[in-house]
């Protein structure tokens, strides 16, 4: 109970904390930004496609949801680490190292939020009336065209939901990030990692509470923006 009294107003933030905030925002932006186009394609394939391996793709997309995040992070290390097949190739070919870098944190977040984004978009794509797509066909729109001009805009709520969920979930992503990218202040120490550190430190509850509050503010800011942009208002 005493705890409630110990949480103080989070401002001003310390330098490290500020850095964690900026880093979190950058990481979330990259995770959502790179994840979204891919999520759209996968969602479309799952919603409309009928191809062998469709079910496998579906299961694969859900993988990060069904495994403990720590395992996801560990699998990422196995695949994208310097000795992993993709990681070795990236390092040899482009000199890119993902582990311990901001990009790695973004990758981990991106993988974790991917199933959420795909589901949201897929739901909305499935709700689009296929008769409208038929109408577009008779007007000469081939499938990419149709997707971009009809399906996607009509699935707008799903895309928005994907962005909102991806962004908020990114701000809370912990296990996969710390396992894959470690907890390096200024490079991979996002807010959740800072909160976790504080929580595990003796007497750190107050700091953790402060930082959690910052995290909530950031996420709520995103929600406000989303609510403001929601298609219902635009209509």
């Amino acid at each position, binding site marked *: 109970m005493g705890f409630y009294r110990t949480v103080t107003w989070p401002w001003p933030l310390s330098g490290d904390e500020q850095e964690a905030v900026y880093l979190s925002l950058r990481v979330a932006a990259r995770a959502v930004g790179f994840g979204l186009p891919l999520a759209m394609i996968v969602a479309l394939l799952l919603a409309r496609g009928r191809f062998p391996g469709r079910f496998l793709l579906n299961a694969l997309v859900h993988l990060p949801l069904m495994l403990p995040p720590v395992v996801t992070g560990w699998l990422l290390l196995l695949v994208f680490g310097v000795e992993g097949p993709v990681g070795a190739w990236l390092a040899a070919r482009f000199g890119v190292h993902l582990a311990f870098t901001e990009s790695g944190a973004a990758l981990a977040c991106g993988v974790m939020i991917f199933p959420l984004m795909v589901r949201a978009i897929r739901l909305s794509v499935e709700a689009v009336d296929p*008769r*409208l797509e*038929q*109408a*577009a*066909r*008779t*007007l*000469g*729109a*081939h499938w990419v*065209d149709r997707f971009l*001009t*009809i399906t996607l*805009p*009509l699935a*707008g709520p799903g895309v928005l939901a994907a962005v909102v969920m991806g962004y908020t979930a990114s701000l809370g992503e912990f296990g996969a990030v710390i396992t894959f990218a470690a907890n390096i202040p200024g490079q991979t120490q996002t807010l959740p990692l800072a909160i976790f550190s504080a929580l595990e430190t003796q007497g750190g509850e107050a700091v953790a509470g402060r930082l959690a509050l910052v995290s909530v503010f950031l996420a709520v800011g995103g929600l406000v923006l989303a609510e403001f942009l929601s298609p219902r208002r635009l*209509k």
Partner: protein
Amino acid sequence: MLRVSLEHRFAGVSLTMAFEAPTPGVIALFGPSGAGKTSLMNAMAGLLRPHRFRMELDGVPLERRRPEYRGVGYVFQDGRLFPHMSVRDNLRYGLRRGGAGPVKFDDAVALLGIGALLGRRPRHLSGGERQRVAIGRALLSNPRLLLMDEPLSALDQARRDEILPYLARLRSVLSIPIVYASHSLDEVTRLADTLVLIEAGRVVAAGPLTEMTARVDLPLALREDAGGVLRGVVNSHLPERGLTAISCGADFVWVPQITAPPGTGVRLRVPAREVILAVESPRGISVTNILQAHVVAVAEDAAGHAALVSLELGGGALLARVTRDAAERLRLAPGRPVLALIKAMSVDWHQED
């Protein structure tokens, strides 16, 4: 020439239809609700894949092309405007994809009377407004064949009367063949060159409009609004009497004065129930047209109270419906010469092109 044949089964309903019709021209699919008009059109647009299907337009087989490359414009029975686009963007959708065509954006907008709606979203339109936009959208996609599924049934008479001539003009000026589904005989006779009668998934009869409408052996003749169609040419105007003379073969038919200049081809529709038959020439009567004809065939309707009389005139064939009583009084029988009395007001005329 447009040749189409189709076989398909839905759960419980089977469709077997085939027809061919000259192009360009308007081919009307005429039949009751559930006859199979929409299914046939869906197949022609490539949206339905029937068990068997052939479609050939001017020698080009189209049945294998995907809908987006088939060049078939479609005005859907259920509108299907894009809800997330303004009216303007809906109209432009096909315009940008179909390539520049003979139909101009501004012309189509003006004709359909949708200039004031361009900025609106479809859900802010009334039912009729929506349908007009759908017609515009299909027209502007510059199709090689236009399918129209009951495009006017949501429109009021005035708007219909405005749009119908434009559709007729499309046929002749742009030579886009049009397949037109309808259950309004009026629309069909005003517009069609070829009439395809469909019932319960079968083609009952198909042929040129003027022939089909004068036959007493088709279910068409039994309808309240049955009527014959004559083709003619504007001969001269009589402004002082407010009349125009149309020459149909050997006959003159008078109609209330029209604007088309002499020499214009017109289509005259005379409802069967408005044709009066006489054996003596009446006097002091408001009827303007008194045409010599002879009876080709007489048939009775199902109830046996009306007689359907197929007439041969100098310039075509007409249908008259009189009471059985009158048919007996006048002793109508094949070969009998009669006078066909037709009010000038009874003649609907439509410019051919």
